[in-house]
């Protein structure tokens, strides 16, 4: 426990001093504000930039608050994931490569404590980013849109999204435990985006997967998801996450020997 708090303190301090603590949430907040604004002012924006013939009218579908959340979620699924993976791809591999890990590995640390301290710090930052980002979006959405989802529905949606982000962060850290930084980023992003492609192709048949979570979560905003499918997807995600953590700890221990001396 003592070691865990020491290492977690080290991770959080590193996040602050490398500015990660600021820029990762800020990117989420930025898109959280941009997305509702863009849709609200889209007609004006198009009018001012486009040289449309006189009298041409836009038939833009009326956006609801739920539509904006869905669109923002789409943004976070690309840029947000990219930012998280890039922010944490070097968590373990970087310490091996630079040799800073060496002086930790020669001390009587347990590798599960080592991995989990990094995991906790990364999950905390991902949660903060997610909630601040959607919080920012919510403050704009309630001001700019007529129909908005209720608070409880948004909270349930965010809980489901949190499970998805835990999966993303775990995958990134385990990749970083197993591979050098570049390979870790490639593997994590590859798995995430290939998973999304597979989901869009055969998702109708494969209803219990981590890639389903954001879709199920969004359903809270317009109605409610099929509870059996949601529970299944959450269960499968939890199982994969635990297995990834265990594998990551093993890899961290095994690859300690590769740390630069």
């Amino acid at each position: 426990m003592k070691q865990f708090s020491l290492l977690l303190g080290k991770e959080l301090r590193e996040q602050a001093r490398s500015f990660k603590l600021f820029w990762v949430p800020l990117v989420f907040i930025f898109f959280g504000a941009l997305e509702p604004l863009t849709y609200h002012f889209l007609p004006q924006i198009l009018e001012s930039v486009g040289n449309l013939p006189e009298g041409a009218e836009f038939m833009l579908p009326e956006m609801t608050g739920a539509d904006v959340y869905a669109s923002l979620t789409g943004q976070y699924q690309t840029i947000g994931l990219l930012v998280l993976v890039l922010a944490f791809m070097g968590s373990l591999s970087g310490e091996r490569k630079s040799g800073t890990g060496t002086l930790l590995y020669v001390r009587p640390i347990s590798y599960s404590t080592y991995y989990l301290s990094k995991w906790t710090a990364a999950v905390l930052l991902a949660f903060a980013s997610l909630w601040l980002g959607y919080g920012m979006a919510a403050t704009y959405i309630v001001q700019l849109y007529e129909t908005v989802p209720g608070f409880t529905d948004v909270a349930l949606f965010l809980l489901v999204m949190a499970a998805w982000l835990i999966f993303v962060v775990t995958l990134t850290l385990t990749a970083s435990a197993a591979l050098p930084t570049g390979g870790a980023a490639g593997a994590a992003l590859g798995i995430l985006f290939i998973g999304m492609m597979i989901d869009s192709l055969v998702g109708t048949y494969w209803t219990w997967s981590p890639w389903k979570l954001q879709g199920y979560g969004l359903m809270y905003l317009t109605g409610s998801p099929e509870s059996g499918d949601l529970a299944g997807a959450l269960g499968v995600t939890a199982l994969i996450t635990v297995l990834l953590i265990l594998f990551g700890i093993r890899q961290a221990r095994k690859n300690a020997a590769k740390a630069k001396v």
Partner: protein
Amino acid sequence: MSITEQLAEIPWGLIWPLIAIQLVLMTAALIDLNRKRSTNGPVILWVFIIIFINTIGPVLYFTVGRRHS
């Protein structure tokens, strides 16, 4: 519509947070760059990327531009 009218029409109350975030990200990146002065690629290139590419510029700097010593 004159430029001043157009400017007046912009809902600044809604937009200033976006501008503030841009500036904070840019400033943080430039401070860090100034402190470390070691990047992947020429430093001056990163100064331009940070200043001229909105939002993504500083993020690119923090993720791939920064060299870990």
